[in-house]
């Protein structure tokens, strides 16, 4: 069995008296899509922000390729190969595709000048690689569709060396067709074989379309995990609802 690229061991995160994560374990393998599921407030956001270096864990340890690591800033995490695509995508609407693509990591010439032609070309080529042909890299991001913005953010993370790609609800704010585009993009990235994807979603159908492995969170704890073949559809639905029996919920609904 291959070694996980990223391993999370007993991760605890407290905000003052509030226990956001209570001993979470997670293993992420290259070439796999790891679906991270859970209700609102389950701790998904805290978990990915800790992985991305935004929060520091209260206790517990992260391992990259078996070696313990500590991220003091988002920079540390991205240097270690963790690329996060946030829900709001971290793109700037008024800026061009290229300027967004290289935001914070511009290619510099003498005097800190931008190597614009080169950057335009790289942005265009990288977007093309994961399935969007962009004729005009000087176009403002504000004119792009939600799916295209998602692609931009994913392409950016991969280009800057992400080995673990964290996608925070990439399909939630999109229309049907664009959701499928994003799932296609996820599959294309998975096919490369060298990148591990953590796919956070509310949507069990989307997760079943692409996921190889599942972890379910509820109230800051892992309440279930397993490989795609091992979990039944009903089990996934039960765990997604935070462990509550779907039948009970349906019963409660019917009673109103």
């Amino acid at each position, binding site marked *: 069995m291959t070694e996980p690229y990223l391993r999370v061991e007993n991760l605890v995160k407290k905000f003052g008296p509030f226990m956001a994560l209570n001993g979470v374990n997670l293993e992420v393998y290259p070439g796999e899509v790891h679906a991270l599921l859970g209700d609102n407030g389950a701790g998904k956001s805290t978990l990915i922000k800790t992985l991305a270096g935004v929060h520091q864990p209260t206790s517990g340890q992260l391992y990259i390729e078996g070696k313990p690591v500590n991220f003091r800033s988002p920079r540390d995490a991205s240097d270690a190969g963790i690329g996060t695509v946030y829900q709001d995508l971290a793109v700037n609407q*008024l800026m061009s595709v290229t300027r967004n693509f290289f935001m914070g990591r511009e290619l510099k010439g003498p005097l800190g000048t*931008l190597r614009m032609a080169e950057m335009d070309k790289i942005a265009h080529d990288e977007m093309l690689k994961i399935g969007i042909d962009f004729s005009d890299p000087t176009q403002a991001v504000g004119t792009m569709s939600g799916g295209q913005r998602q692609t931009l953010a994913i392409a950016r993370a991969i280009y800057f060396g992400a080995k673990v790609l964290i996608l925070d609800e990439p399909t939630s704010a999109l229309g049907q067709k664009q959701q499928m585009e994003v799932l296609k993009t996820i599959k294309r990235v998975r096919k490369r074989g060298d990148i591990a994807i953590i796919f956070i979603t509310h949507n069990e159908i989307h997760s079943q379309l692409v996921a190889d492995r599942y972890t379910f969170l509820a109230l800051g704890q892992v309440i279930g995990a397993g490989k795609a073949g091992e979990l039944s559809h009903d089990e996934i639905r039960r765990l997604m609802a935070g462990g509550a029996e779907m039948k009970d919920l349906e019963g409660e609904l019917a009673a109103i």
Partner: protein
Amino acid sequence: MSDRSEADRLTQETTFMRLVRRPEAGAFIVMLVVVTAITFASDFKAFNALGLKNNIAIISQFGIIATGAAMLMIAGEFDLSIGSMIGFAGMSMAMMLKWGLPFGLGEATPLTAFVLTMCMTLFIGWMIGTIVVRSGLSSFIVTLAFLFFLRGLTEVCFRLINQSTQISGLPDFKEESWVAWILGGEVFGWVYDLWFQLGGNINRRGEQWVDGFDARFLWWIVVAFCAWFVLSRTQIGNWIYATGDNKDSARANGVPVNKVKIGLFMFTAFCATMFAACQVYDTNTADAAKGNLMELNAIAIAVVGGTLMTGGFGSVIGVAFGAVTFGLVANAVFYIPWLDGSFYRVFVGLVLLAAVFANERIRKRITGGI
């Protein structure tokens, strides 16, 4: 199923449409109208040898501070302390020249007075920026506090040390000091020499009338060129846009948002000090009321130049057009006898309102109507 993709929905624009969509387009058209109107209304007097010099003087003043204000606005912050900073810097320099350096450091030269004042104002700019980014308060309130604080401090210092809120009759340093000369002297004399050779630029006695532009013309060009270059061609420029557009996403991508903002607060302080230095060394006077309301002029010019109030978008070239427009109108009363001077403010009000609407339209077109 059609094979159309999302990319097909964006129609290719003609070069003309691209130009019209640029942020400086509106400012350019307004400038053309104003230049034409003032040329004819003043019977060409606004652009004779002396008229041009005087117009360029005020245009350069506006241009220097508006460039600073616009850069800061693009990064999403305001600076209302520019005007008071001008008064403070002017007071500081003139006071050192008259009463010597502080802490008994002896006689001041134009160089030491300028350098010491610049250090102080840059420090105040750094402090304003640090307060804004550390506290997360609106820069509007923080710099409003410094508007009052610095103006009051300027007046207090004047009265305590100088017994009067103005200094006049300083010796003319331009002859002996190169610092005073490059700040307050004359530049581009060859333009007027050439003009004289060609048969213009003659006074009533038949001699050459005007020798050159005020040195601040050169400083405006330097400041505006550097700002344009940094903003559109460098990494720091990309950081400034990113900071003003959405600072959270900029931060998530590793842009040092706080440093960018603090740096730009220091840049507006620098611009205000250059404004004051050119004035002090040109006229050899200082007054506690100098620079009053200049912060609002600077912001108005930045907006008319196409800078968005919400940040993330703007152009230094547009600001230059705006400075030309405002400078000409502010001076128009001297060339058009029937014009009431207060029409300047009427004009500013109207143009400002029109500019805000125009900018909002541009923003919506870029972001696809959000």
